[in-house]
């Protein structure tokens, strides 16, 4: 049941308009209408000409466990390293990796060199995107402060005019509450958010792994939960203050990782504060015990009473310890924290799953654990990790797709200026619009290897592992973004 391009032998190349693509008998997921079920899609001249929902005999045998068609994914948080760190990733390799992961839109963080603190850097990224030939839409956040140094505001107005969708000093928090307050006010005036990496840098100086049982045994310096919780508390208090002067101030907290910080956001949202947040695949599915050598999913490490199972007790340590690919900021937390990330996604506290795709070179990553750069190359494995949650019955497929599509788009729609841009468009399977979709096969597993990853960053803790949901084709804005090299080969 693989997708059938009408003329597979001379199909389009990446970047070319998809003249004709038909997929019969697949499982369609439309997070805008909330509908999913058996159906067919037809793309003609880049336009999603028809979406047919099948019923009765026609639908027989089509299940959600096979080929799935969903709107193209939107990653609200990725690092493509250009300009400045092109040996780790470029815009061209980044968009290729994104398309392989099913993404048709990515929002890049500004911690490049130079930082994206003025429009010239954005123009450079856009020109690299155009040169790549890929139709994957590249959006960007501008820096909050000049050089992300936490002292002066960046060229925020000029950046807004140039089209950034918000501001962040990601990689680090906005340094002081005073600057954060200014940034929320000024960005709010411009109709844009501050996206905050919530971390108390004093509490995390030299920290290596989540403070707790695993870090204690491994002799790794603890990264306390309080470092995130206190930063989120600060951010929420400053937001509340800023709103009195600028009702359009908006805060988005990215890659939250602890139960306690998510609970703070839950309460703030219930109280009506304009705050949103997201979680990552690795904080949902991995736990700190992976650093000791465990490789089971986080929910498999959770005991019935909500505490963590002990990997030293139950034989869960199957890989060598201290794999530097697992060094990430914020750090992998306990299985209970991972469960809290999932609960936040399910109850709407967290609106989106973002990859925090952070490619690194071998030189920066294949070193002693405590000296390795933080980050996981994850834009190509996000779907597979999220599908592991679906396979385990932890997350309905429709909710998983929503977290990758309408979820992030809905976050952008909360930001007055960005809401008016295509970034906030509804991500559904809508007839008559340029086709923007991904087709993947849940029954087709693929192995994560350095060769299978399009990203330059091979720093994935999933190397060697098989994931479900091989992406067969990604179409962005009516143009081909990715096609599985084997697609069509096994046609009879």
């Amino acid at each position, binding site marked *: 049941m693989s997708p059938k391009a009408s003329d597979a032998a001379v199909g389009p190349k990446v970047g070319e308009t998809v003249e004709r693509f038909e997929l019969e008998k697949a499982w369609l997921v439309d997070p805008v209408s909330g509908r999913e079920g058996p159906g067919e899609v037809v793309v003609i001249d880049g336009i999603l000409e028809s979406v047919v929902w099948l019923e009765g005999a026609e639908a027989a045998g089509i299940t959600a466990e096979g080929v799935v068609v969903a709107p193209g994914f939107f990653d609200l948080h990725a690092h493509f390293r250009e300009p400045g760190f092109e040996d780790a990733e470029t815009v061209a390799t980044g968009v290729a990796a994104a398309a392989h992961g099913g993404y048709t839109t990515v929002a890049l963080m500004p911690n490049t060199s130079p930082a994206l603190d003025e429009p010239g850097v954005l123009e450079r990224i856009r020109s690299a995107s155009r040169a790549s030939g890929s139709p994957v839409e590249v959006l960007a956040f501008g820096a909050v402060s000049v050089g992300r140094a936490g002292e002066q505001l960046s060229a925020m107005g000029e950046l807004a005019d140039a089209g950034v969708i918000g501001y962040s000093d990601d990689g680090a928090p906005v340094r002081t509450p005073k600057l954060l307050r200014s940034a929320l006010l000024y960005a709010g005036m411009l109709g844009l958010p501050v996206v905050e990496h919530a971390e108390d840098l004093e509490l995390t100086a030299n920290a290596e792994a989540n403070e707790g049982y695993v870090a204690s045994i491994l002799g790794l310096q603890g990264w306390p939960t309080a470092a995130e919780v206190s930063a989120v508390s600060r951010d929420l208090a400053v937001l509340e203050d800023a709103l009195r002067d600028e009702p359009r101030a908006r805060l988005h907290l990215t890659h939250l990782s602890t139960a306690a910080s998510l609970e703070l956001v839950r309460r703030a949202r219930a109280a009506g504060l304009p705050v949103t947040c997201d979680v990552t695949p690795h904080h949902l599915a991995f736990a700190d015990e992976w650093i000791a050598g465990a490789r089971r999913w986080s929910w498999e490490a959770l005991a019935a009473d909500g505490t963590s199972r002990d990997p030293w007790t139950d034989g869960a340590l199957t890989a060598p*310890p*201290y794999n530097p690919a697992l060094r990430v900021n914020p750090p992998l937390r306990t299985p209970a924290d991972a469960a809290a990330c999932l609960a936040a996604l399910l109850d709407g506290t967290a609106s989106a799953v973002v990859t925090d795709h952070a490619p690194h070179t071998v030189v920066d990553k294949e070193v002693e654990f*405590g000296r390795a750069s933080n980050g996981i190359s994850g834009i190509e494995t996000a779907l597979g990790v999220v599908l592991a949650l679906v396979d385990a019955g932890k997350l309905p497929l429709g909710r998983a797709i929503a977290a990758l599509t309408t979820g992030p788009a809905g976050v952008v729609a909360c930001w007055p200026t960005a809401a008016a841009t295509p970034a906030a468009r509804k991500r559904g399977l809508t007839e008559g619009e340029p086709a923007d979709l991904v087709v993947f096969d849940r029954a087709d597993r693929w192995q994560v290897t350095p060769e299978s990853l399009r990203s330059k960053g091979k720093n994935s803790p999933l190397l060697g592992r098989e994931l479900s949901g091989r992406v067969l084709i990604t179409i962005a804005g009516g143009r081909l973004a990715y096609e599985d090299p084997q697609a069509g080969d096994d046609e009879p």
Partner: protein
Amino acid sequence: MSVATEADAAPVKGAAPNQDVVWHHRHLLDVDVVTWPEIDLIMRTTDEMKGILARPIRKVPALNGRRVTTLFYEASTRTRVSFETAARNLSADVVSVATATSSVTKGESLVDTVRTLEALGAEILVMRHSVSGAPYLAAEIFGGHVLNGGDGWHAHPTQALLDLYTMRQHLPGGDLRGRKVAIVGDILHSRVARSNIWSLTAAGADLWLCGPATLLRGMDRWATAWSGGAVPGHGRFHVTSDVEAALRDADVVMALRIQRERMQGGLLPSLREYAARFGLNAERVSLAKPEAIVMHPGPMNEGVEIAPDVAISGRAVITEQVANGVAVRMALLYLLAGAHETAHAGEAGR
């Protein structure tokens, strides 16, 4: 780290195991994966090495022609000299790499350095590193044997084994079961404490870790997790800031070094205050059993974690620890080098 091995069937903690256990570890990175029967084998092999050290000529040809390289990324005199003496006593060729004079100062990575040393013929790599887990990275790429000489806050297996050997020498029947061992000092930053947790809970000792709350951070969670005797082959242990409770009726008292950096880090008000509240002075040590021994892994800050009169008292076995260190390291080099040829089951990456 603790991938199960076939020898995991240690029946009773600290019990005398059978004699036919064979050594099958390719590396010694920590004592966590070493089972009680294997520890007993190390102890018995150390006995033999002690016999060699008692001879007028302290040299045997056991490792004649084998190449031992010491790679120390962190300053250390006693551990490096102890390893090199041990290797020479076994007639091994010793190459000593001090990173201050090597390419490491030019920015060479650990991986490249290890590959280079292997190409230069290193067979057994003794490694000391300031980053926890670094020897695991070396073990993944090194074709020979890696012997951890201390990594970050994580592990110092040869120290734990020489400590255990020294305790057994002084306890009736060499049996630690039910014997109270109190380790007092900077537990948080101590690789000695962490390795001793594994070995002493395997030996069946009643282990107490004691220090100011700032230097115990996270350890209570470890102790709590093990409070049900959860990990096979290991007993529970105690973590406390109550130095009297830790020392009362102890059979073994061990002080750990307090470093000056802890004051700059805001973890301690002053060395004076530490000495007053936690330092092992004669009065505190008198809380322990009359026959209790006093240990210190060195180097000592006399007057801080241990009073000078305690350090030189008849109870102190600190110089014995140093002497036993050579014998334990000879035993480990001998076992790792595969002197028991048939023993190698080959455990990749361990």
